[in-house]
């Protein structure tokens, strides 16, 4: 089989030798749902157009499934051409160990410093003044999705902020709706909590707690209010009984639930269901209180390889990913925001435009994946999934455990 493949590749190489110097580049990522696959195909097409070949290495499941596979391939000495991570601290140690390529050359040639907006995205890729990754999109968590249908059934107006939403919860219950849909997976509870934290205590508190690991602040009265709000959210989420985030979003789409705190990726689900923003559903960035979004997202990293052909192809891919045409085509399909402010997204829908405005106004905050290690995020996931599912834990007790995690985090 291997011999056969070698023959095939060598004949292909012979045929291609006359024209450009084509190289196969294996790219690993975890974009496998319908919209995601369509988006990644835009990258593949753009890269193939440069004369090289994109070998798709999609891993089904989520980042939690894919990351260990990617890391073990790199550590095992069998690196792929490029791979997707969420930028931030996930790749920190791979960079320290010298396993990832320094892209500073490409970044300077392409002028990434001037085009990437917000600049914090590039900072997240930078270690000791060198750039190690190519950011491709921005996904933000701070959205509250509300079903107009559910509020109409309950006979109350669609809320415009979190407090109104909490006040409307009893009416939703009486109408037989779940006020707030929260899926059972750990990351969803922790994510919802972090959004509450930004909405109620403000972005500075989040940055000081997760960024500077300020344990005193975590134990303080501001956070106590956030935990009390999380207690409300827990009350409102009772009876959700679904696992996946898109199942929870579906409860909102079908009007069985009033709302859901979920990242902008939820928008794709509303779109697929044929709903219109403003008519069938509303989106409130920052819970309608603090209108800002975080700049989490995806980035591509490139492992160190010995083959100079592959290294050249990696440079080409890095440049292609940030090219204006690729950015537009990719982000429209993915439902995420582009990483450069100088491109035209007229085709974007209402919620996406809201996001673009907030981005243009510079109301952004760093993502938890950038501030926290995966270890800390995992501990937070464990804490909040327990809190949201076990009503016997008081908000005060949860806050104590939260302080403990922050005090011991690095």
């Amino acid at each position, binding site marked *: 089989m291997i011999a056969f493949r070698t023959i095939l590749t060598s004949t292909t190489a012979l045929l291609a030798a006359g024209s450009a110097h084509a190289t196969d580049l294996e790219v690993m990522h975890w974009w496998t749902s319908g919209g995601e696959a369509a988006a990644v195909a835009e990258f593949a097409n753009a890269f193939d157009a440069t004369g090289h070949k994109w070998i798709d290495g999609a891993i089904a499941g989520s980042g939690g499934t894919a990351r*260990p596979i990617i*890391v073990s391939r790199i550590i095992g000495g069998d690196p792929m051409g490029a791979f997707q991570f969420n930028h931030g601290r996930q790749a*920190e*140690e791979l960079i320290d160990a010298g396993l990832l390529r320094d892209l500073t050359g490409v970044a300077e040639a392409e002028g990434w410093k001037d085009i990437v907006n917000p600049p914090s995205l590039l900072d997240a890729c930078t270690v000791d003044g060198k750039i190690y990754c190519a950011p491709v999109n921005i996904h933000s968590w701070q959205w509250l999705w509300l079903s107009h249908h559910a509020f109409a059934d309950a006979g109350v107006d669609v809320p415009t902020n979190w407090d109104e939403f909490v006040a409307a919860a009893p009416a939703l219950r009486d109408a037989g709706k779940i006020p707030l849909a929260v899926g*059972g997976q750990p990351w969803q509870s922790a994510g919802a909590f972090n959004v509450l934290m930004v909405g109620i205590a403000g972005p500075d508190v989040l940055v000081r707690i997760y960024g500077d690991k300020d344990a005193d602040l975590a134990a303080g009265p501001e956070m106590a209010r956030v935990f009390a709000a999380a207690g409300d959210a827990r009350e409102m989420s009772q009876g959700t009984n679904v696992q996946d985030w898109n199942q929870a979003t579906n409860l909102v789409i079908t009007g069985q639930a009033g709302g859901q705190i979920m990242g902008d990726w939820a928008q794709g689900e509303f779109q697929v269901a044929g709903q219109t923003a403003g008519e069938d559903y509303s989106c409130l960035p920052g819970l309608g209180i603090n209108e800002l979004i975080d700049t989490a997202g995806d980035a591509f990293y490139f492992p160190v390889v010995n083959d100079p052909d592959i290294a050249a192809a990696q440079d080409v891919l890095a440049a292609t990913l940030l090219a204006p045409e690729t950015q537009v085509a990719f982000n429209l399909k993915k439902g995420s925001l582009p990483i450069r402010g100088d491109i035209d997204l007229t085709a974007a829908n209402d919620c996406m435009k809201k996001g673009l405005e907030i981005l243009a106004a510079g109301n952004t905050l760093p993502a938890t994946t950038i501030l926290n290690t995966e270890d800390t995020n995992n501990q937070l996931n464990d804490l909040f999934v327990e809190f949201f599912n076990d009503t016997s834990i008081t908000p005060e007790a949860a806050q104590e455990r939260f302080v403990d995690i922050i005090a011991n985090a690095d």
Partner: protein
Amino acid sequence: MSDRRPNRFFRNMTAKIAAVPMILTALCVFVGGTVWTIVHSFTDSKLLPRLRWDGLDQYERLWNTNRWIVSIENLLIYGLCSLILSLIIGFVLAALLDQKIRFENTFRTILLYPFALSFIVTGLVWQWLLNPDLGIQSVIRGAGWIGFTFDPLNNSKIVIFGVLIAGLWQGTGLIMVLMLAGLRGIDQEIWKASRVDGIPMWKTYLFIVIPMMRPVFITTLVIIASGIVKLYDLIVAQTSGGPGISSEVPAKYVYDYMFQGQNLGQGFAASTMMLLAVLVVVIPWAYLEFGGKARG
């Protein structure tokens, strides 16, 4: 008589040479890997293993983590129930099949079939069966019993029993077949003798047959016990640890922290604790089982 007995080392030379690869594998992979893991559990290794000493910090954090405590409790509940119920159900089914019934082959096949499924498939099937809107509850409500409630997977107090049902369904078939083989190994003369003496059948099973089946029981015990310690895929497929953290198990903690949490040290500490728990059970047992014989 030869004047000199051949050196014991050179006896059965071919067999010993043939065993060398296995011995090396055992030493390098099992013993070596175990030692490496234990050593690294005292470091602060994150994504990549590194030898930067951290003392007992990983263990301290481990035992202060609520999720780990819940995992241990769940494993104890699951382990005890699964051990006792597998043995009882497996033996009773085997004894029933042993009554020279008709279609024994058919029954045996049906009972053994679940074992052919992986834990992932088993977990998914039982997730659907126990789903209140699709599974058993809705069927019984549909049949007219409106007040019937059976929803273990969404109730954090009994979720582990929902997993236990699936585990038993999958595993008892194998135990039954092993028991049946053991029962078939019992000399028919013993049955005849006990019938002549007028001993009731249940007494014959309990006081004569079961003690004679000791080796079979030991085998099944080892199989069941190893299945309990490595319980992971069933949980992932059926509940993914939920609701909340109420069906977490130690193996899942190890995996989640080693790979998703990028904290190898924590994962190694947890897996070392798992090894320790197994050794606490195995060493006294091995001592009694083999040590006694060597002396006698």
